[in-house]
């Protein structure tokens, strides 16, 4: 901008050229690399995998174009049930984790109290722990509640594995993510709005519901969306605590040994499209990109 800059050296020019040409190309390639599996998933959902026609049972090679999978997306035994279970668990765990996490977020940002640092660390720990460790430790604990000595103690027996154990695990790991998201949104919240409401005669409860809550609602929604998507896609933790109950990822993992129906690609594509639409519609509605 100023005229005091020295003339660009050869390396400087090289760098500028690099930055202007090579970097964008590289970025486009990298993003393409990120999107390739999605394209593959989408394309192969239109593959015909018909055993009676000699295609075998696996959707690994292209055979022929077919709308069969799209016309009968839930047609594989167990697919519908596992998908329903996944959705139900995601909804329930999102509700619970959002409530619990929002409360924690409110407490952490608006009050100074003893043990705040410890609580912060406690919230951070599950995000820094590998899912594997969380899953196996939960699984071991659930089993232990069914074996002596805990079996005969007042501790409830959280065994056999099933919907409830999966739900417990999902709520557990979602809480941290909700707290972090809500805190980020609460940090920018202007307390004076609340004080103004109180000055106008509103009590605590009213203030919260009519002033605070609507303003932090987008943050809560963002946290809920995050929790929902984490729960629906969770595989590692769920695999340790699911037992005979299938969720969609568990079902997929189980079936790929024996068959790879294109219905999996169809469901994946549908989930993808729904997510894209959700993001697009929220962008269009607020007129601003979501943060």
């Amino acid at each position, binding site marked *: 901008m100023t005229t005091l800059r020295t003339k660009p050296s050869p390396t400087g020019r090289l760098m500028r050229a690099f930055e202007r040409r090579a970097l964008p190309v590289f970025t486009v390639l990298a993003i393409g690399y990120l999107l390739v599996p999605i394209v593959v998933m989408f394309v192969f959902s239109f593959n015909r995998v*018909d055993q009676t026609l000699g295609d075998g*049972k696996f959707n690994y090679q292209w055979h022929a174009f077919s709308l*069969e999978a799209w016309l009968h997306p839930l047609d594989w*035994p167990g697919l519908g049930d596992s998908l329903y279970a996944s959705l139900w668990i995601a909804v329930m765990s999102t509700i619970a984790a959002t409530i619990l996490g929002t409360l924690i977020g409110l407490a952490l940002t608006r009050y100074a109290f003893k043990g705040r640092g410890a609580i912060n660390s406690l919230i951070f720990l599950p995000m820094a722990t590998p899912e594997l460790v969380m899953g196996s430790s939960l699984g071991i604990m659930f089993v232990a509640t069914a*074996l002596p000595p805990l079996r005969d103690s007042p501790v409830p027996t959280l065994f*056999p594995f099933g919907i409830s154990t999966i739900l417990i695990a999902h709520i557990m790991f979602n809480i941290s993510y909700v707290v972090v998201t809500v805190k980020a949104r609460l940090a920018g919240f202007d307390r004076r709005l609340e004080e103004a409401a109180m000055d106008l005669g509103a009590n605590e*409860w009213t203030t919260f519901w009519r002033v605070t809550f609507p303003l932090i609602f987008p943050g809560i929604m963002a946290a809920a969306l995050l929790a929902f998507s984490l729960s629906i896609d969770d595989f590692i933790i769920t695999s340790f605590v699911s*037992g005979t109950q299938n969720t969609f990822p568990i079902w997929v993992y189980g079936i790929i*040994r024996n*068959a790879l129906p294109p219905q999996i690609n169809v469901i994946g594509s549908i989930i993808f499209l729904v997510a894209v639409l959700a993001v697009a519609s929220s962008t269009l509605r607020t007129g601003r990109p979501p943060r």
Partner: protein
Amino acid sequence: MNEFEKKITAPVSRRVFIHGAGLAGAAAFLAACAPGGGATTAPGATVTPTTAPGATPAPTPEPTPKTISGPLKFANWTAYIDLVGAASDAGEYSPGSSPAIEAFKQKYGVEVDYEEKIDDNNSFIATIKPALVAGLATGWDLIVITDWMAAKVIASGWAEKLDQKNVPNCVANLRDPLKNQVWDPGNDYHYSWQSGMTGIGYNTTAYKENGLADPTKLADLWKVPPNKLTFLSESRDTFGLALLKLGIKADPATVTDADLQKVYDDIKPLVDKGLRFTGNDYLQDFGQKKVWAAMVWSGDLASSAGEDDVFVFPEEGTMIWTDNMLIPKGAANKYTAELMMDFVYEPEIAASIADWIYYVSPVKGIGDLIKELDPGAEENPLLFPTDEIVAKQQNFQFLPEALESKMNELFADLSGL
């Protein structure tokens, strides 16, 4: 101020109430839609464990209630029932479903949750072992496991005693060679599902493309590039065949630790070059053209793989084994499970299943039925092994404990886990 406050707060309390009621209603609705049923929804729901774990089972079976409950949770191996359903039959069966199961569902009006969850005896039993040890329901009503594991499960008291009155077809139609097993002489706890053999499977196209002669002996497997080869994760099958390859009779009574060590030394170089161990997932590998040859179970390639994937009876011999239906302790739908066992012993059903899965049926006299169903199939050695093949069958199932631990140790080292 009070009037003002009243104006602000009154609508809020009404709104809060409506919201609260709405939320409560929604919560009740959601809770009611909880997926899954039976023993697996509530934690700690002990579904009538009849005896404490480890205790000897009751001398006479309790009279099974005659109510048909469901859904029947049936765990089985891959490609082990007539999963004929295809897109072309979309009107009748959805892809991946079985006419035999559909017929059962229609006959008894009960849902069946058939899952091909079993890939390997050890891994499957491990998933239900904690529940069995704790005396709780496992979540399964009917499982199919191989002889040696069935023997262990029964010996540990983890199988439900069958009510023979509920399974007349089984009693009448079980083939004589399969009766009077040492580990369950009166068929109190099990009925055979299918018998099969372990041998060589290979892809003719891959062999031709790469200039390999078709395999006839076990030693030919060692000629394939190891990263294009798989052996079985069932250690008994892998070690058994490898013993045969080395010319050692695979007889549990005569095999020694030194023999097992020879097998280890023979297989280790292959592992170092990329050999893998699979269960039924070799079907996936054949489907992806990932392997050229493998140790396989006799019926799978014929039922579920491509046209050019072929099973071969090795010259040295094959391993013979039988898979058996058992009802795990604490099963919620025991009567329904018994009905299923009885159902698959009906000759027509047995014939239709065997015809599709290409294994040796335990049911007497289905040869004629198969001839009608699928002319020419009665000559198929996979279904009806010839005397020559039978003579070379070896049973390496029941190992003495010391031998078994040695084999497990060596195998764990080979398979990497």
